[in-house]
């Protein structure tokens, strides 16, 4: 198995941590993984992204031109990366920050959900939107299980961040039952 995904949004939305959690969970499932952040002049509110590759065999390139999955948490990142999704690939979009009408692709599966609103409603924290989209991605794609994501959260969030673990788990599971929040997943046509 081989899966590559770009996670993208604004700096400060927890994009890099979200990718780290995904990669760590895949590692706990004994997969080969790489996590590669975008690297340049980074700042809060600017663009942030990372590429995660999960594979059952040794990984060559940690970056990909064409990707199977895209998590987008902002309008600029949607516009920048949607063209790189392979035909038949998956887009998980946080519609709280990007209008789903901006999605131009008809040949991919789209999960459009207001992750920030869901996060606020369900766990009382807007900033858990990243965990909601990650939960939705995992539940739909099956690249990692929600259980492993929870386990990875316990490994990754230590020290001051340890108190966030229950909230993170709840947000991941909200994302996991994303079908409650979207009318239907729009499947690939044809």
């Amino acid at each position, binding site marked *: 198995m081989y899966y590559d995904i770009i996670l993208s949004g604004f700096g400060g939305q927890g994009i890099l941590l979200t990718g780290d959690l995904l990669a760590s969970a895949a590692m706990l499932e004994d997969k080969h993984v790489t996590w590669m952040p975008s690297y340049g002049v980074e700042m809060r509110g600017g663009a942030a992204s990372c590429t995660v590759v999960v594979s059952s065999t040794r990984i060559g*390139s940690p970056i990909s031109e064409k990707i199977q999955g895209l998590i987008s948490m902002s309008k600029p990142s949607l516009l920048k990366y949607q063209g790189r999704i392979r035909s038949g690939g998956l887009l998980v979009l946080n519609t709280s920050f990007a209008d789903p009408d901006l999605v131009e692709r008809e040949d991919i599966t789209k999960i459009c959900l207001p992750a920030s609103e869901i996060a606020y409603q369900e766990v009382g924290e807007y900033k858990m939107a990243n965990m909601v989209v990650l939960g939705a991605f995992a539940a739909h794609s099956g690249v990692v299980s929600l259980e492993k994501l929870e386990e990875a959260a316990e490994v990754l969030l230590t020290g001051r961040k340890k108190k966030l673990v229950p909230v993170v788990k709840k947000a991941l599971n909200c994302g996991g039952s994303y079908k409650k929040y979207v009318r239907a997943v729009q499947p690939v046509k044809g």
Partner: protein
Amino acid sequence: MLQGCVALAEGAIAAGCRYYFGYPITPQNDIPEYLSGRLPQVGGVFIQAESEIASINMLLGASAAGARAMTSSSGPGISLMQEGLSYMAGSELPGLVVNITRIGPGLGGIASSQGDYWQATRGGGHGDYRLIVLAPNSVQEMYDLTIKAFYLSDKYRNPAMILADAILGQMKEPVRLKKPPVEIPHKPWALTGASGRKAQIIKSLYLGDGEMEEHNWHLYEKYEQLQRRDTLVEIDVDDNADILLISFGSCSRMVQSAVGMARSRGLKVGFVRPITLFPFPHDTIRELSREVGRVLTVEMNTGQMWDDVRLSLHPGCRASLLARPGGGIPSPAQILSKMEKLLKAGDKVAEGIC
């Protein structure tokens, strides 16, 4: 899962390095940031020096006193260190210098580049010397080769360099932190205080008749020994391969992907990755180029390692270069299409940059 820079720092700790001297520069700041917290935990010393020139001379001093010590920087900072590196090689002092490269020349940029190959492998400073240069291509190797670099550096009493870039420094991958027993050899030459023994001197100045020539032949003999005993190379070659790809460092990861894609299309290909850039695996490449007959070197500069490849080639082997000098990363698809083009053209295609 660890970031490359952090894995390298942990490798240094595992190797028994307890002294770090450095001055900030992107994209290697994760190393001093991490070590500034980690070294005090293990009884070590972290010093942010006032400049790279100070850093390399602090390293020289710590090494002269017998300690395992390191510094790290990037392109412009490494250039400033060349005088100190030359003095260390001349004085036969070990020590680790890490270069997480930028794009040069000048202040250049912070994206990945392999443009410091010549500087690293040709010595860089004045005089007739070499550095021991190791080029990791994974986060695991950022850890393993750092330990190895300290070992080789002490063994040959010569400074060693880890040559990596932002991809390897920033990337996270799973790492097994094997903790080998720390083997710091006895250093009878170290300046540890002369009470109870004769005074010793460490220097690189030899003014007597013929002294310098003798000294340089002695250094040369060490580099010959390195070449014979401690050349490291990864080889993955199909039987009856039609083309041999040669690449090092982060760039070799893209080549590995391309090799996988080529094999899934039924092509017979070979892949060679020099892990030590000095000593360079000349013999391996000479032998494989004789068997395969066509070589494609892929690197993120205008063909610096290609020099060494061409020095190694079996006469008659056709050599081509795919070069991306300046932040651009050759994609596996680009490498594959170049491979296919060369194979299709057979003997008609001219040698050189393609």
